[in-house]
């Protein structure tokens, strides 16, 4: 458990969390799922995550605000932004602000795993791979 990466996943679509949590857990990642921005921010105040994956478009608190909070409070945490298909400008803005990378909906679990793998390596982690069950 010591070496497992702490992942926060924020998306107001419940199915995203429901499918990605086991998909990432299989690769030895510890995932906490949030369906709204305020809940995520509250948790961020309590705990430092290695990687935060957040949808950019949410009610109340959106992905950009989560990104800003993380950048302001936890330098080493990598933020991966999930964007819509048509929002290239948003993705560019996120990268300029300091997001690690972005991933456009719709994507496959493997696409996200690949980005998380690169983020893990950037954190000095050996990278993720399917844990033996």
């Amino acid at each position, binding site marked *: 458990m010591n070496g497992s990466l702490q992942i926060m996943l924020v998306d107001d*679509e419940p*199915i*995203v969390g*429901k*499918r*990605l949590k*086991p*998909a990432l857990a299989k690769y030895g990642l510890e995932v906490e799922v949030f369906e709204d921005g305020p809940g995520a921010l509250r948790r961020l105040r309590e705990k430092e995550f290695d990687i935060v994956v957040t949808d950019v*478009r949410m*009610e109340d608190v959106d992905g950009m605000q989560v990104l800003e909070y993380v950048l302001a409070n936890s330098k080493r945490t990598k933020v991966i932004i999930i964007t*819509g*298909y*048509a*929002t290239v400008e948003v993705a560019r803005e996120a990268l300029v602000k300091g997001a690690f990378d972005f991933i456009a*909906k*719709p*994507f*496959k*679990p*493997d696409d996200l795993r690949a980005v998380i793998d690169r983020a893990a390596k950037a954190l000095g982690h050996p990278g993720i791979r399917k844990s033996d069950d």
Partner: protein
Amino acid sequence: MDYSAPDERPITDAVKTEAQRALKERPSFSIRTRIILGFLMLFLFSLGINITSVIMLTRIQSKLGFLESASSYTFEVQQARRFEKNYFLYRTNLADAREHTYRAREILEGDREEMASVVGVAHFETMARHVDRYEELLSRLEEPNEKRGGDSPPYEEIEEELREHGAEMISVAGQLLAKERESVENMLQASKRILIFIIPVLFIVIVYVANFIARQMLQPLNRLMADTRRIADGDFTPITPRRRYRDEFTELAMALNHMWHQLVHRHDLLVQAHKLKAVGTLTAGVAHELNNPINNIMLTASMLEEDYKSLSDRERLDMVRDLLDQAERSRIIVRSLLDFARESELKTGLLQIRDPIEDVLQLTSNQIKLSKVKVVRQFAANLPPFHGDPHQINQVFLNLVLNAIDAMPHGGTLTVTTRIADERDYIMAEITDTGVGIPEHVLTNIFDPFFTSKPTGKGTGLGLSVSLGIIQKHGGEIRVRSRTGEGTTFTILLPMAKVPA
């Protein structure tokens, strides 16, 4: 994408041809002819007066001529009598008496016709007879003078008779003169009266003719003015004949009908153009919104494939259900747009005002979500229906909701209210936003076609102009009130459908 045209065009076409035919079919009676007739009437009237006056004057003139003759006749007769008296008193001047009698007779002879026509033939003959007899008696007086000494028994008798005829001549001439003076006097009086009487009559006739001509010109002009105002206000019925005859204004009415027809056509094209633009806007939102269900499907299907063997039946069933739900969700997202964009046979019918509003809120739900706008619905229950074309009414609310969303780029509240209007027999819908508002000096322009404050490519400025056209076509009204920085309210009034009891 020939929105609403194929169904509606033939109707307006038919209405137009019918109106044009009715306008054309009337017998022609041009304004020109009418004016000529009016002036002709006036001319004939004046001519009548003139002819009457000329006749009167001619008659007065001849009377005056007669009066002159009559007075010289009287004068001669009086002279003759004077000399006659002298003769009887002093036996002198008999020749003078005869001379004057002769002249009197000459006057009678000379103006015979004229005098006879004035006093009547019988009267004239009597006069002539008196003079003849008088003259004869005078000449008889001369005779015994020549044969003096002989017995002259009739001398007294002659004198007697002379006196008698002389007196008769004087009195007849006097009567005649008096009578003719009186008749001339009467005729002059009559002419004066006619001339005085003519003035008000002529005035009335002129006023009538002027009025008649003015009516011929102004009445159709006023009507056409009212018609153009009516068409400009959105009443889309053509001009139909209201007078029995065709005239120069008929051409104008037909030209206006043609223009009206073109306007309706252009308006339909604008409605269509703006609809396509709205579809474009909505498509961006739909593309955005579709990402979510497609993403859910992709993730779920991937995991189902990846873990197929290790999953329990219950988990597999849950995933398949998610797949179905998300597919359904995609269908709903796309369908309302397709419904809106698709050409539809559905035409006018009884509508509940909240139905098109709900349709539009569904249609714009993606835009609403994207711009973080909250929607508040305040629908009155049991509103009476109204008569309308659901697609066109949808388009109006779509324009208003898209405008409201554009006015709230950083989110806000969109309040939709429906209720019975304060105006009798109207229902009302209000779309209120908490957006940037509209500056007062712009408020009068926002319904103008192509007026937009949005960057080119984003706004065409057609939305409100098209919406106004549609609502007016439905017999309704659009109102707006706004405060910069606070928000805007658009109010739609539509006449309630008259439901038979």
